[in-house]
């Protein structure tokens, strides 16, 4: 970038800060870090020094006017910095300038050459390139001749500049001024303001670059975090709409839901909203997404603002989703925080940082509606926009759950969420005939043809199923009404079948009976015929006998 050509910069190693300043603090010049008590000035300076010594081959000198070196070492040890080892390796030198006002008396003109000498000796002892002065303002409480002091401080800064020391100077925030003693007058190159604000009982740390001569820099206030990972600034900026699109699909973990989309499943890197009323199974659908991602060998990150890890693991197990095993194998990371734990932008910052650290392919925010209770809808929308842009830019699929308060005809969610989302799964929980039945409807899925049907959403201990509702004369039916209707139609079907069978049997019987009658008549006929035959025989016999007798008689008369 052309803006970074002007002056050279030294990376601080503080997450985000170096991005923000396009390189770090100005090399070989003093930078002023000011802020009120407890806002992380010393940590900023210490991190700058440690990273320099450890990662960038630039040893440093820590001049401390307040805290004892031992305390500083102990403080950063909890953040995983082995500062004492760096001291032992002669990469960092401490110069503890302990001053006691009570044993000091001023009599005439003086200067701070002693400090210069000590600093020089310390710089030479480790070959330092970086210097931290924490906090030089303490001198003002010891030396009463302010004119001398100011001249000497100015001289010190110039001297450090001449020596090419990249210096971080910390200073306490004053009333209406950046620093109590107006040190910003002497440090013209880079002034960083740390702030610690409490709003609605939620505290947020923010960092602002007040001045950075000769370079472009972000001018916003950026939230920063101090936690077990040290100091990290989170440049939260909108990335715009130029992210890569993905053609491949990801599974929701519910085969029936995937099948509702032509092509099977949702597009990768899309933002999916799972909205529904209380108890409609939003978290379960979201967990199912996460489970599917893990099962496909990818990583998923689950932010829960309502349930703890253990609770969620147990609850998901009851519907056959075992997220516990993925958490164990570190495929799934589950982060549970209360919405009120951080401010909105801090949540955003945490999300961005965790995503950058864990590098998942799917992120769940469950539920985003939790924020609407505490924040301004506009702010929330802009936060979500940033999350979505950020995740899309990284090719990460985002699943958001949203608690709706009503579902009757009004499927609008707050803040015009819809326009931000690529897919919208609507979960309904409707009362019909004295029972609630869950229904699932794919309200929207950009870029994919999808089913227009409302499916009944059934959760059981062997998983999640979507059942097409019963389409009868009385419209679509679900739940026991559907079962009832199905049973009824099964019964009529059976009845009909039985009727046919019976009719068939009757005909068969009739046929058999008719056959029997035919046989009987035949037999009668046969008998008659036999009788007739016998009569004919008798008749013939008689006629023959009669003829015989006549001829016999004729013969006898003749003779």
């Amino acid at each position, binding site marked *: 970038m052309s803006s970074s050509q002007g002056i050279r910069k030294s990376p601080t190693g503080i997450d985000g800060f170096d991005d923000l300043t396009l390189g770090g603090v100005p090399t070989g010049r003093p930078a002023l870090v000011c802020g009120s008590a407890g806002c992380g000035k010393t940590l900023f300076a210490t991190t700058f020094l440690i990273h320099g010594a450890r990662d960038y081959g630039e040893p440093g000198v820590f001049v401390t006017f307040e805290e004892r070196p031992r305390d500083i070492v102990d403080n950063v040890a909890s953040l995983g910095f082995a500062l004492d080892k760096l001291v032992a390796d002669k990469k960092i030198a401490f*110069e503890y*300038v*302990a*001053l006691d006002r009570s*044993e*000091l*008396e*001023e*009599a*005439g*003109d*003086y*200067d*701070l*050459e*002693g*400090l210069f*000498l*000590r600093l*020089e*000796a310390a710089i030479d002892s480790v070959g330092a390139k970086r210097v931290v002065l924490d906090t030089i303002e303490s*001198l003002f409480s010891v*030396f009463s001749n302010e004119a001398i002091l100011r001249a000497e401080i100015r001289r010190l800064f110039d001297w450090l500049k001449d020596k090419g020391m990249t210096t971080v100077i910390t200073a306490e925030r004053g009333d209406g001024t950046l620093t109590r003693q107006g040190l910003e007058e002497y440090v013209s190159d880079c002034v960083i303001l740390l702030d610690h604000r409490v709003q609605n009982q939620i505290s947020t740390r923010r960092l602002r670059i007040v001045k950075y001569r000769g370079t472009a820099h972000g001018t916003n206030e950026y939230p920063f975090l101090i936690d077990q990972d040290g100091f990290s600034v989170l440049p939260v900026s909108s990335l715009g709409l130029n992210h890569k699109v993905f053609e491949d699909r990801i599974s929701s973990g519910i085969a029936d839901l995937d099948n509702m989309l032509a092509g099977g499943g949702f597009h990768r890197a899309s933002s999916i909203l799972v909205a529904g009323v209380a108890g409609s199974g939003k978290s379960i659908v979201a967990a199912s997404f996460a489970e599917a991602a893990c099962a496909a060998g990818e990583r998923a990150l689950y932010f829960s603002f309502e349930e703890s890890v253990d609770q969620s693991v147990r609850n998901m197990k009851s519907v056959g989703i075992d997220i516990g095993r993925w958490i164990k194998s570190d495929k799934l990371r589950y982060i549970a925080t209360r919405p009120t734990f951080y401010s909105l932008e801090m949540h955003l910052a945490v999300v961005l940082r965790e995503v950058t650290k864990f590098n998942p392919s799917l992120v769940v925010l469950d539920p985003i509606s939790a924020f609407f209770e505490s924040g301004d809808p506009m702010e929330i929308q802009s936060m979500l926009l940033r999350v979505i842009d950020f995740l899309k830019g990284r090719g990460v699929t985002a699943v958001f759950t949203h608690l709706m308060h009503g579902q009757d005809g009004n499927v609008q969610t707050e803040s015009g969420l819809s326009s931000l989302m690529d897919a919208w799964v609507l979960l309904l929980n409707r009362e019909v005939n004295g029972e609630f039945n869950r229904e699932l409807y794919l309200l929207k899925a950009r870029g994919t043809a999808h089913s227009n049907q409302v499916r009944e959403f059934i959760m059981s201990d062997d998983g999640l199923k979507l059942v097409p509702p019963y389409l009868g004369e009385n419209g679509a039916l679900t739940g026991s009404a559907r079962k009832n209707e199905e049973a009824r139609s099964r019964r009529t079907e059976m009845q009909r079948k039985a009727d046919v069978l019976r009719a068939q049997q009757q005909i068969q019987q009739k046929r058999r009976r008719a056959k029997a009658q035919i046989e009987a008549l035949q037999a009668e006929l046969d008998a008659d015929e036999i009788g007739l035959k016998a009569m004919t025989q008798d008749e013939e016999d008689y006629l023959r006998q009669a003829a015989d007798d006549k001829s016999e008689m004729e013969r006898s008369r003749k003779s």
Partner: protein
Amino acid sequence: MTSTKRPRKLILYVAGQTPKSLAAIANLERICAEHLPGQYEIQVIDLRQDPKLAREHSIVAIPTLVRELPVPLRKIIGDLSDTHKVLVNLKISDST
């Protein structure tokens, strides 16, 4: 304290031959000679020769005059042009 006769040591830390340093040395010698004869023995340490001593004795301002004994330790900074202030801080009460 019985060792009232033995002069106590005063250490003056300077850094090179700067006008302030030279003035401090001259002022201290004058004050001791004029007001506190025999009570103090002056040692001048040039921190430029041995910067480590600055750390050891936690010297920040130059010149610094250190009176280690009797306790409490006193540090007087400046070119010691304010004779009255120097005396107030160096005077040992008459009982010793």
